[in-house]
C-alpha cells in the first residue's frame, strides 16, 4: 500500500486523472453509477422540455388514475401527471443534494484542515462537536435545525449542511494529520512557504480525495434526507414538486393510488443507488483505504 502511494505521487496529476477515468470505464458498476448521475442531472436541467405535462396542471377528471398510456405513472389526487412531477421533482433533489453537500464540504474541510494543521484547543473542541453530531442521527439534527430556521428548501439546505459538515471535517482532519508529518512538508517549509501555502497548496490537494468520495455518497444521502424532511412536511412547500412532498401527500391515498408513492420512491432509490455505486468505485479508483472512510 505504501509503495503504491509513492508511485501514485510520482505520476503527474493529469496522467493520474486519465488513469482514473480509464479505471471507471473498465468498471461496470461505476459506469452504471456515472450514467445514473449524468441522467439525473440531465433530467433536472431539461425537465421543462421533456415532461409530457406541466407539473402543476390539474385535471380533475383524471384524479388518482392508475398508470395508463396517457399517464404512464398515473396521476395524483389533483389529476396531475406523476411522471412529470417526478421529472420536475428531481430539480429540488439535485439542487438540495449538491448545494447542501457543497456547503458542508466547504465548511467541513476548512475547519477540519485548520484543526488538523494547528491542533490544540481548536482541534479538541472541533473533535468533540464532530463526534457528537456524528453519533446523533442526521434526521434528529436536521429536525432540530429545521425547528429553528423553519421549513422550506433553503432551510433544508442549511440544516443538511450543518448536519453533514462534521463528517467531512473529521475526514480531512485525519488526512492532514497524516500528511503533516511527511518529510516534504518540512522541505517546503524550509523553502520559506507560509502556513497558508503549505496547508492549501500542498496538503489540501492531497487530502481531498477521501472527501470527494464521501461527498459523492453524501449527495445521495442528502437527497434522502431532503425527501424525508419533505415527507414530514418540512421541505419544499407546495406547489413546488419535490419527491418527499409528493410521497407525503400520497400517503393519504396509499390504498387508492399507490403509484403516487411507488414511483417517486423508485426514482429516489435509483438516484441514491447511483451515487453509492459511483462512490464505491471512487474508493477503488483513488486508491483510498476503506477504513479511512469509516
Amino acid at each position: 500500500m505504501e509503495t503504491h502511494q509513492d508511485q501514485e505521487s510520482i505520476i503527474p496529476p493529469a496522467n493520474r486523472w486519465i488513469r482514473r477515468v480509464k479505471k471507471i470505464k473498465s468498471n461496470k458498476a461505476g459506469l452504471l453509477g456515472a450514467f445514473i448521475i449524468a441522467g439525473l442531472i440531465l433530467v433536472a436541467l431539461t425537465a421543462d422540455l421533456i415532461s409530457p405535462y406541466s407539473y402543476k396542471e390539474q385535471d380533475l377528471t383524471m384524479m388518482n388514475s392508475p398508470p395508463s398510456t396517457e399517464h404512464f405513472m398515473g396521476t395524483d389526487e389533483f389529476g396531475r401527471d406523476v411522471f412529470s412531477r417526478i421529472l420536475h421533482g428531481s430539480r429540488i433533489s439535485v439542487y438540495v443534494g449538491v448545494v447542501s453537500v457543497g456547503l458542508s464540504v466547504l465548511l467541513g474541510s476548512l475547519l477540519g484542515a485548520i484543526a488538523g494543521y494547528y491542533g490544540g484547543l481548536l482541534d479538541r473542541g472541533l473533535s468533540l462537536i464532530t463526534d457528537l453530531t456524528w453519533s446523533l442521527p442526521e434526521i434528529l439534527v436536521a429536525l432540530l435545525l429545521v425547528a429553528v430556521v423553519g421549513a422550506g428548501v433553503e432551510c433544508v439546505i442549511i440544516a443538511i449542511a450543518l448536519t453533514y459538515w462534521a463528517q467531512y471535517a473529521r475526514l480531512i482532519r485525519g488526512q492532514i494529520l497524516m500528511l503533516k508529518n511527511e518529510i516534504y512538508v518540512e522541505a517546503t517549509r524550509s523553502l520559506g512557504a507560509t502556513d497558508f501555502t503549505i496547508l492549501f497548496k500542498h496538503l489540501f490537494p492531497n487530502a481531498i480525495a477521501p472527501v470527494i468520495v464521501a461527498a459523492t455518497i453524501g449527495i445521495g444521502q442528502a437527497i434522502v434526507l431532503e425527501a424525508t424532511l419533505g415527507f414530514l412536511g418540512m421541505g419544499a412547500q407546495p406547489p413546488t414538486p419535490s419527491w418527499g412532498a409528493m410521497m407525503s401527500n400520497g400517503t393519504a391515498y396509499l390504498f387508492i393510488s399507490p403509484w403516487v408513492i411507488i414511483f417517486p420512491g423508485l426514482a429516489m432509490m435509483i438516484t441514491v443507488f447511483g451515487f453509492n455505486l459511483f462512490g464505491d468505485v471512487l474508493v477503488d479508483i483513488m486508491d483510498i483505504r476503506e477504513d479511512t472512510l469509516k
Partner: protein
Amino acid sequence: MWQFVIRRLLLMIPIFFVLSVIIFSLIHIVPGNPIDNLIGPGMTKAHEQKLIEKYHLDKPLPVQYAIWLANLFKGDLGTSIIEKRPVTELLRHHLPYSLSLGLTAIALSFVLGVSMGILSAAAKDTWIDHMAMVVALFGVTIPAFWLGLILILIFAVWLNLLPVSGSGTLVSLILPAVTVGLGGAGLIARITRVSMLEVASKDFIVMLHAKGLGKKAILLKHILRNALIPVITILGLRIGWVLGGTVTVEIVFARPGLGQMLITGLFRRDYPVIQGSMLLLAMGIVLGTFLADVLYAFTDPRVRDQHQ
C-alpha cells in the same frame, strides 16, 4: 475493567451537558418569541405577562437554562404548551413504543446483517455474494419511510397479513421493526463482510487450516469472532443512525412513540415537548453508544487489557 466502565459512564456527563445546552439554546435562539404561538386572539396583555412569567421568558438565556436544568433534575421538564400536561408524563406514555421498536430493530439488524455478511463473505465473488450486497446496499439507501409505506402496501393491503398501523400488539411491531431493521441490517452486512474478508486474510487463519480445522469451524468460530469486533464498534458509532429511522417510521405507522411526539411538537412549536423528546432520544442514543463501547471492550481481549 469496571474502572473503564465507570470512566466511560462519567464521560456521559459532559456529553449530557453539551447536548442539553445545544438542545436548549437552539430553540431559544429562534427569532421571535415562543410566546407568540401561545397568544390566541382575545388574550389580554396581563394574560400574556403571566405566561411569560410562567415560562421565565423574561429572564436572560443562561438563567432560563439554569432553571430548566434544575427542573430537569427534579424530574420536571415543563408542561406542554398545547396539551397542558407535564412533559415527563407525555414521555412516559410515548417512551415504551419507541423503546420496543428501537430494541427490536437493533436486534433484527444485528442478526440479519451479520447473517448476510457471513453468507456474503463465505461465498465471496459468487452470485450469492453479489445479491446479498445489492440487497444490503438497497437496505442502506432506501429511505425508511418509503420502505415502510411499501411494506404496508404489500403486507397489509395486498396480502392482508399484518395490521396497517396501531401500537398495542406484538404483531403491530413487526412491520415497523422490519422497516427500521433493514436499513441497519444493510449497514451491518456490509461491515461484517469487509471485516470477515480482512480477518480471513490473516496469517493465523492459515495456521488454523494447518491444525486441521474445517472451513466451517474456522469461519464461525474464529473469523466471525474476530470480525465482530469492528462490527460492534461501528454499530456503536452508528446506533443513532439506525434509531434515527424510528422517528419517521413512527409517523408512517402511526405509532405513538417519541418520534411522533417530537414531530407533533415541532409542528405546534411546543417547545417543552420538543426539548423533552429530543433530549430523551439523544440520551437514548448516547446510552446505546456507551453500551456498544462496553461490549466492544468485553469482546476484544486487547482492548480489555488497555483499560485495566
